């Protein structure tokens, strides 16, 4: 196996060359030995870094999730007590405030994902199709404009959005111009679905809505994203669509020209071509974008920390993990929540992969 590299292939295997070949094999062995050492030397700085700062800490954090560590002492020493599955029970089965907060944050995040992922995927596809047009003047400008928000700092952008979405901010001034009175965006905790139901005359929970599920009324489960969460939804769609647009653009450029031409000759209209040719050819990219979007949106953190610290309709599992651990010193519970979120993301990824693969 080790001798079958290109060096020996260059040498014709004639009798007269036998000695030369032997020498080469010997050299090759020596080289492999040298490569073995060099390989480990090359890879070990990064490998040690990943092990020390990533792999081992994750394992220790998993251990922490079974203890009541408060963040102050040595977690492996005496003061952190092993409490088994208590942290997980507190989050999943016991009727506690922690569980209610956790499932409320799951609800908030669920609606966030439900709105952001389809919106960012569709918008990115639309932008890509618009920018992809051959005859378009200034393609570079538009592409740059749409991608730019994606490369900037989440903190800086969130600050801008907080400014734009104040009660008397730029967005409401714009809405005023068209005669709409905008809400006090970031303070408004009313759910979108609740507000829609109110239009149809339903403004409080019917009898069945009083039942509780995981510490939350069924009525509250059906709230939809709050007005304040909608700001973060808009922000997320705005900052991510550019990245995904580029992915779609790359895929569009990979569609063979003749496929498009053939469909054109066959008399397909632009719309038919889009739905019957372009979209099916983009299926793998759509699947990939949806998967990346789902993984990303279940981890929304920076924006919440900045804009929704005290708003219960904006807290997400990622933010709650931070709050529990770093502000309430309940690192055990925080770690358990982080791992539940981890598992959720893995399960969703696996399901999506299987589901979307079938469709492709």
């Amino acid at each position, binding site marked *: 196996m080790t001798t079958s590299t*290109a060096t020996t292939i260059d040498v014709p295997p004639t009798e007269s060359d036998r000695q030369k070949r032997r020498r080469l094999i010997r050299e090759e062995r020596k080289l492999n030995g*040298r*490569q*073995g050492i*060099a*390989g*480990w030397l*090359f*890879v070990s*700085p*990064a*490998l040690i*870094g*990943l092990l020390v*700062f*990533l792999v081992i800490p994750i394992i220790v*954090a998993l251990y*922490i999730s079974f203890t009541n560590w408060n963040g102050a002492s*040595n*977690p492996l020493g005496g003061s952190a007590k092993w409490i088994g599955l208590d942290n997980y029970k507190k989050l999943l089965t016991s009727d506690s405030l922690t569980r209610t907060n956790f499932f409320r944050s799951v609800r908030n995040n669920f609606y966030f994902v439900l709105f952001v992922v389809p919106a960012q995927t569709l918008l990115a596809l639309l*932008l890509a199709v618009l*920018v992809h047009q051959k005859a*378009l003047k200034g393609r570079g400008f538009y592409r*740059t*404009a*749409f991608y730019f928000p994606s*490369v*900037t*700092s*989440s*903190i*800086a*952008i969130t*600050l*801008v959005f907080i*400014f734009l979405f*104040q009660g008397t901010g*730029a967005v409401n*001034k714009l809405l005023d111009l068209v005669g709409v009175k905008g809400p006090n965006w970031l303070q408004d905790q009313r759910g979108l679905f609740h507000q829609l139901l109110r239009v149809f005359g339903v403004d409080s929970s019917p009898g069945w809505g009083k039942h509780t599920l995981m510490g939350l009324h069924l009525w509250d489960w059906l709230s939809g994203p709050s007005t304040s969460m909608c700001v973060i939804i808009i922000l997320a769609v705005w900052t991510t669509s550019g990245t995904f647009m*580029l*992915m*779609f*653009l*790359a895929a569009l450029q990979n569609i063979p020209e003749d496929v498009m031409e053939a469909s054109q000759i066959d008399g397909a209209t*632009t719309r038919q071509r889009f739905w019957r040719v372009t979209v099916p050819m983009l299926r793998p*990219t759509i699947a*990939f974008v949806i998967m990346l979007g789902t993984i990303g949106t*279940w*981890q929304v953190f*920076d924006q919440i*920390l*900045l804009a929704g610290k005290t708003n219960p309709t904006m807290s997400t599992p*990622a933010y709650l*993990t931070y709050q529990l*651990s770093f502000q309430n010193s309940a690192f055990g519970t*925080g770690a358990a929540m*982080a*791992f539940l*979120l*981890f598992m959720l993301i893995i399960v969703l990824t696996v399901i999506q992969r299987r589901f979307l693969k079938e469709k492709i």
Partner: protein
Amino acid sequence: MGDTTTVEAARQKRRRRLAYGALTLFALLYLGPFIIQLATSFKTDPDAATHPLSLWPNPFTMRSWKRIFGFSSDSSVDFVRWLFNSTLVAVCITVGRVSLDSLAGYALARLKFPGRKLVFGLVLATLAVPGVVLLIPRFLVLKQLSLFDSYPGMILPIAMDATGIFLMRQFFLQVPESLEEAARMDGAGVFTTFWRVVMPLVRPGLITLTILSFQGSWNEFSFFLVSTISPKYYTLTTGLANLSSGSLGSGTQYPLNMGAALLTTLPVAVLFFAFQRRFVGNQMAGAVKG
């Protein structure tokens, strides 16, 4: 026949006009916030509060920018320090990632060493770990190593990354093997071959990794949030987050906030415009692979 073509042409014209209309509207939506941000940073506090939409500061003032760059009697907010910290940390992390990721990427692409498959598997596995899971583990390890709240603590844990290793490996795999063999035949050692022959050939990859690393570490927030606690280690992102939450007594000073946010955006923006092609190319290449 002639009729249908004119109808078709008219339709196409209409469609093109519609496309331009949509594109312009979107461009406004995507760039508008930055323009408002820029205008607001030159406004006075009351002007920013009463005319948030106006693009014309009235009166025009440099107050916020003077405060940001330390030319003001009010030094309660140390932006210059944040700027210094952000630069220092981002540069160190970038240097770390470019060198360590290239070394590891080369070994995984070209050097035959026992356990290579296992190491590569590990790198791929860490690639899949969602960042949100890392907050507690990273805090934990920094505490244990007494690196919490220090520059090394902010740099070392993210001075290498699986994404970069994977990226560099892909670039090294494209280098023709015959070149390395030629170098070896000439008696060059493994490191010399790597440094003199292979590295110059993967320049595009190195530039890409440099940009991505700098952008990533400049914009990094959650990791610095859990790895430091003293204000002297504030970066632009953690400092800004603190400023806006009002703990530094500046909760609603929107011009100051917008100016500082712009300062945070600027270096990456410059990098973005300078290397635009590469930024865009990277994303697109990533998509094709995926």
